[in-house]
């Protein structure tokens, strides 16, 4: 079952006319995990690329994220890698360090892409050891979706921004409708322990690692303050159900939860819910400083392919970046400044709201070992928020495990 990857191959090339001299055509493969409506948007863009570049034929292959990295890593390790592929920003270091990626600096300079046309944080996201190995296509921060009907019922006019506004709104929106003493409409929910928990920890100045990435920050007072705040929302203010108790995202879709933080990629599941009137807003401020979790889809080229294929691959990457307005329409936040400032992007209701956070988004630490340590923090948050472990113990344990991995490598 593990190896049975659901591979959806779309042979986009079928639509383009075949030039007579087939020897002049460079055929390249492009792998990504866009198995939702984002995949359809990407297919459109790639189809246009194929039409405009008759000398290159791109074959796009969509592999669901759940098995994507298994297949990609094995492809890179044992031959047969794709010519262009998507790599999440925080995985760039691991692949770059092992020499699996082509350095892109000369391509970036020669094609005139410059930092001034990029969101600064996303520009940095493809660098490792000050060299470029990936180019960010987008930036997907966590944001907040809210239910317009429930907001109207509670008499709240605009989504909360500050810590105070958030608490007032959350309390107003939490209601016991059937009078059994238990709320059945919640103001807020931790829809995803990792994304929401990490964002709140960042706002309090905590997180998995210290800024120098030399040791764990899970046992720092800042992380503790963030966890205590979440516990307060659950136990003291009672505006948030304990995570894991029920499917919070489903709760938002069915109108039981008024404010639900989630990623930009969830728009589609809301669009399908016809009776739901919702809007999006930046993730509210809960701690002392502005911060919110974010990731990026980076485009990368493997190290071991021919120069001719690399050139064709770069052409595709540049094209995708230049045309990221179409990508935005498919439900993403682009990172090219001129696209972000365009009227067309500003008219996208959810995307433009999420984009307001771009100045203060926080990527996960760019550490070689992030993949090995990430779960320690999540387990601690789950244990502490579920009440199955005292927070101090859960956090100390996570810190010890993180430090152990840091010491081992």
């Amino acid at each position, binding site marked *: 079952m593990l190896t049975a990857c659901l591979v959806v191959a779309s042979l986009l090339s079928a639509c383009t006319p075949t030039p007579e001299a087939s020897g002049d055509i460079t055929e390249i493969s492009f792998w990504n995990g866009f198995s939702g409506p984002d995949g359809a948007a990407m297919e459109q863009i790639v189809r246009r690329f194929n039409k405009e570049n008759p000398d290159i034929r791109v074959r796009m292959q969509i592999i669901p994220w759940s098995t994507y990295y298994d297949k990609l890593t094995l492809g890179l390790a044992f031959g047969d890698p794709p010519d262009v592929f998507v790599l999440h920003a925080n995985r760039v270091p691991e692949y770059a360090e*092992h020499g699996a990626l082509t350095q892109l600096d000369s391509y970036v300079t020669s094609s005139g892409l410059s930092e001034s046309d990029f969101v600064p944080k996303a520009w940095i996201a493809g660098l490792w050891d000050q060299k470029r190995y990936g180019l960010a296509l987008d930036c997907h921060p966590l944001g907040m979706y809210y239910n317009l009907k429930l907001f109207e019922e509670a008499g709240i006019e605009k989504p909360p921004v500050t810590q105070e506004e958030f608490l007032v709104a959350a309390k107003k929106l939490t209601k016991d409708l059937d009078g059994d003493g238990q709320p059945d409409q919640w103001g807020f929910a931790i829809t995803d322990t990792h994304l929401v928990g990490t964002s709140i920890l960042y706002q309090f100045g905590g997180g998995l690692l210290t800024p120098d990435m030399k040791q764990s920050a899970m046992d720092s007072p800042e992380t503790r303050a963030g966890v205590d705040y979440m516990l307060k929302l659950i136990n003291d203010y009672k505006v948030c159900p304990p995570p894991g108790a029920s499917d919070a995202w489903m709760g938002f879709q069915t109108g039981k939860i008024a404010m639900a933080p989630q990623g930009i990629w969830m728009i589609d599941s809301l669009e399908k819910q016809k009776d739901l009137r919702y809007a999006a807003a930046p993730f509210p401020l809960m701690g002392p400083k502005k911060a919110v979790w974010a990731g990026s889809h980076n485009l990368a080229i493997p190290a071991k392919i021919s120069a001719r294929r690399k050139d064709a691959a770069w052409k595709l990457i540049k094209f995708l970046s230049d045309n990221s307005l179409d990508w935005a329409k498919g439900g993403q936040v682009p990172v090219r400044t001129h696209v972000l400032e365009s009227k067309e992007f500003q008219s996208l209701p959810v995307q433009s709201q999420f984009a307001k956070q771009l100045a203060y988004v926080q990527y996960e630490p760019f550490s070689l070992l992030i993949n090995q340590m990430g*779960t320690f923090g999540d387990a601690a948050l*789950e*244990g502490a928020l579920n009440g*199955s472990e005292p927070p101090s113990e859960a956090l100390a344990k996570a810190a010890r495990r993180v430090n152990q991995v840091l010491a081992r490598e």
Partner: protein
Amino acid sequence: MKRQQPLPAYGFLAPFAVLFLTFTVVPVFFGIWISLNRWHVLDKAPTFIGTQNYSNAIHDDLFWFALLRTGFFVMLAVPLGNALSLLFAVALNQKFRGTTFYKLAFYIPVLLSVTAVAVLWKWLYSADWGLLNYYINLMRSWLGLPKATIAWIGDPKYAMSSIAMMSVWWGAGGNMLIYLAALKAVPKEMLEAAELDGANPWQRFWKTSIPTIKPALLFGLVMSVIAASQVFGQSYVMTGGGPAYSTLTVVMYMYQQGFGQYQLGYASAVAYLLFLVVFALTLVQFKLLGIKRT
């Protein structure tokens, strides 16, 4: 008649022997070698580090935690599952109409893939609209109790027990068939003789049937301990090892290390440590049940 030359026999064996060698014997020894190396999948070549992976695992509290969680699962699923298998087998050994139907009904889950079963039970266990919570609350409302929502696999306290319960449902039919076959093979004369000597049904079962089917019981027990020690699919599909590591089993941990973090050497070391534990457990069971190797 001339004795058959051995050569054609080897010829017939060859297809199996080649597959067995390539996919079982060689990987077993290759795995030992990998476990002595540091090997990230993307590394050009593995680095020999001796027993470093093993000592890392022994100092890794999560490895021990996973071992304990696996032990907890084995302690729940094996006795319960085998008791249920035996109960079904004894019941189906009676003469009544429709035994074939029940045999089939109890056995069908065994034929399903773990993914199908896990997805099915994930729905049954759903906190919001799971059938299980629905019936519990139906009963509670009859008794005049307030509504309760049990998160089952979403709650670290219940997650592993929930997975064990589902595994019992999934697997009980397999051993049932083995026990039923063994019970059918208990000589009628022996049971009749016991009856003539004045043994009641209870005594006939414990003093005559059980000792006779002991080899089958041992087989069932050993196989289910081995299978349960390697539990993986259930937590992989239903919980991903969470929440808060409550369903992290050793094989799940091995998978995460090997295929999530690409630490092939470390994952192999974990696999061999699990092998040692299961091997020891099997020896203990042989000893306890007093089966001498002949």
